[in-house]
């Protein structure tokens, strides 16, 4: 009896990949093997080396060691151009789109397949053809800057398909999407696999791994931590491999202890930087000892809401009452003096001065008062003592108050922000995307600190686009859509599906 077994083709075979950035080794000899016809998850915490590995495969970085084979052939990939020529396409986390150009122009850019003169009509027709084949809908003549993020991502996918890619790398593709958009993305990804494409899905979200992938490679700290078949594993096994230890459970919420409003917003309206209406008729109350989560897809007014409370943005109407006084038109300094702390959404540009030391960052906003300064002259000793104390108290690593903040990891940078903001015993904390870009360990730390403040009787206004975070921490959840609060739910009533519908603007369906 003879049987011919088709040779099992490994489409991608990366072996012993090493990558160093200066003194730092990002990858210590990592292997990644991806077979044909599969959706392969590349899983790991932030900083585990996932993106570095994929940037090597895509030719953006050069490896310092190791081999790459594509479909059994040795491959040297020196640039994205090489990668594209070999059928590799990347859907970047930060979209690589050019906002003022049209969808069709973005799709064909760099590979226009045209004479020197472009015909817009022909371009649009070509893109439309591609859309029909892969069941992806988006208007070829629309300007990219006018599209919501979910559609912009489709443009990224079209770009890659247009170039005839056989391997599509998705770099954390769900970070900016609503739950419904995520489902639509998964449908597209499955269609791609069924059409014979291979997909590598970079993520740190376990739910997505189980929803859409076939096999999993786990990285931890620049090394392989495991290769798994999705059907034969469990979330806890993967989480253990990612983190290298068992996860602690975030402490269960105790019932609200204190009471009384610490923040009352009535009829708040404001404009965005571009002058468009950003907030309309916002009514919202945060009580002492309560975390109010504000959910929503980024760009629906959450940032403007936080800025209005802090006095960073001038409301056009309405009141913001803290401690009995309307502070809607106060500046940030006066607002902060009423016991308001602020953890801004971008710690690198708003939360910290990266070029300053840890100790100096700890006193930002407090530099003009004793003990840190007298009559306009800074007191170095007091600043250093304060820095050492807070660095220790907030577990900043390395525990060196003289370290430059730019050199700390994201998690430790956030600890510096928290140390500065929480050490003053605020009555209200406004936090925006507090764990964006942080690994699991740092996320746990931030959550615990926020819950600690809540237990102390502080009110917390938590703006986050991570539903897991909102649901893990909030006592009540308000959902924003297009500048309005479309609903406020008790945490127990806020199912993921319901929140997703509200975030996408389907209030009737969600509350039916």
């Amino acid at each position, binding site marked *: 009896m003879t049987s011919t077994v088709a040779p099992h083709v490994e489409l991608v075979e990366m072996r012993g990949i090493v990558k160093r950035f200066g003194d730092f080794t990002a990858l210590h000899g990592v292997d990644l093997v991806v077979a044909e016809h599969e959706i392969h998850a590349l899983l790991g915490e932030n900083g585990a080396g996932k993106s570095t590995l994929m940037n090597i495969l895509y030719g*953006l970085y050069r490896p310092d060691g190791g081999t790459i084979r594509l479909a059994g052939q040795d491959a040297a990939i020196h640039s994205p151009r090489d990668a594209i020529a070999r059928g590799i396409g990347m859907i970047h986390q930060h979209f690589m789109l050019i906002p003022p150009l049209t969808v069709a122009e973005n799709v064909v850019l760099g590979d226009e397949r045209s004479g020197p003169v472009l015909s817009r009509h022909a371009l649009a027709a070509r893109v439309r053809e591609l859309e029909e084949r892969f069941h992806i809908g988006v208007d070829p003549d629309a300007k990219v800057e006018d599209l919501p993020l979910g559609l912009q991502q489709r443009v990224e996918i079209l770009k890659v398909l247009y170039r005839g890619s056989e391997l599509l790398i998705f770099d954390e593709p769900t970070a900016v999407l609503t739950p419904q958009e995520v489902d639509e993305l998964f449908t597209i990804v499955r269609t791609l696999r069924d059409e014979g494409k291979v997909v590598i899905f970079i993520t740190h979200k376990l739910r997505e791994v189980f929803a859409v992938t076939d096999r999993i490679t786990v990285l931890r700290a620049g090394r392989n931590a495991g290769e798994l078949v999705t059907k034969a594993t469990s979330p806890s096994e993967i989480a253990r491999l990612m983190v290298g230890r068992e996860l602690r459970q975030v402490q269960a919420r105790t019932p609200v202890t204190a009471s009384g409003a610490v923040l009352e917003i009535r009829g708040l309206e404001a404009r965005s930087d571009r002058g468009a209406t950003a907030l309309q008729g916002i009514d919202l109350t945060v009580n002492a000892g309560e975390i109010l989560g504000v959910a929503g897809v980024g760009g629906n007014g959450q940032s403007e809401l936080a800025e209005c409370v802090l006095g960073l943005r001038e409301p056009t109407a309405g009141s913001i009452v803290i401690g009995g006084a309307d502070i809607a038109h106060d500046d940030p300094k006066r607002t902060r003096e009423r016991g308001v702390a602020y953890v801004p959404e971008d710690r690198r540009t708003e939360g910290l001065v990266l070029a300053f030391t840890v100790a100096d960052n700890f006193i930002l906003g407090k530099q003009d008062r004793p003990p840190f300064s007298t009559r306009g002259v800074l007191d170095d000793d007091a600043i250093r003592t304060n820095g050492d104390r807070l660095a220790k108290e907030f577990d900043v690593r390395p525990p060196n108050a003289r370290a430059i903040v730019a050199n700390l990891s994201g998690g430790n940078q956030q600890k510096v922000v928290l140390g500065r903001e929480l050490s003053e015993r605020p009555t209200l904390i406004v936090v925006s995307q507090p764990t964006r870009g942080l690994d699991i360990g740092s996320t746990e730390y931030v959550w615990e600190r926020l819950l600690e403040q809540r237990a102390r009787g502080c009110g917390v206004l938590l703006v986050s686009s991570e539903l897991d975070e909102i649901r893990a921490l909030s006592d009540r959840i308000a959902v924003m859509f297009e500048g309005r609060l479309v609903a406020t739910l008790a945490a127990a009533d806020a199912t993921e599906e319901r929140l997703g519908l509200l975030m996408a603007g389907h209030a009737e369906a969600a509350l039916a």
Partner: protein
Amino acid sequence: MTLEMLIGASVFAATLRLAAPIALAALGGVTTERSGVTNIALEGSMLVGCFFGVVAADRAHNVWIGLAIAILAGVLLAGLHAYAAIALRADQIVSGMALNILALGLTTYLDYQMYGTTGTPADLPVLPDVQLGFLKGVPYVGDAIGSQNLMVWTMGVLVVLLQLSLFRTVAGLRLRAVGEHPRAAETVGIDVRRIRYAAVLASGALAALGGAYLSLGVAHSFTDGMTGGRGFIGLAAMIFGRWTPVGALAASLIFGYGNALSTSLQGASIGDVKVPVQLLGTLPYILTILAVAGFVGRSRPPAADGLPYETEGHA
């Protein structure tokens, strides 16, 4: 004051003549800034174009060789800027300013060495006017454009060519992509540096054309610092014109008209009040400040304009 002084054919002709060098610099500005490189050394490129155009035309007794050398000089100066801005990722304003000072110093010094006692020769071959005989006798039009310099027409053709290539061709699409989001362009295999080099060099050539026109087409001589900030005014026209060739031309015409008025209204008066010509002469500069400050319509520069680009991972 008469209507003739405001909108007469001679004012129109002067407007074109005065707008052309500004427009050429502005076209250079559009080209380089659309690729993401700010090039204030356009003023310097213009000035070396003025000077070396005169020197070459004088030595070779041929105005076309003069024009070619003028362009070459402008391109070389722009090349220094491109190297500093693209390869060395230097601050583009500092590099541009340094090159402007270099251009002024170099041309002034060489002018003194070569023509210090006599001035540039009177028998300098010059860029010809285009005589449109068939327009002779056509009222207004004949006087306005019947006898304009070749470079004015060249400028007009270049405006159309650049407008079309920027928005209708593959090269233009790539140039704009590089100026908006160089990393995105690189990820689809576009060579960001090459496009930026080409754009900066082209901007030097365009500015030098403007310079050659000033010395070989208008003044028929060289005097120190004769560009008088027209390269900078060109950059203002570029902003005013929202980084498009046609818009830049329109803005240049407004500036040119302001200049033309301050000549034609010389000595004019409204009733008993003398028109303050000197004050009127400041009009283009006031417009410039308003344009740059964004008061005259909102204009958005290319998103990556002036930002050095570093290829990730290869450094």
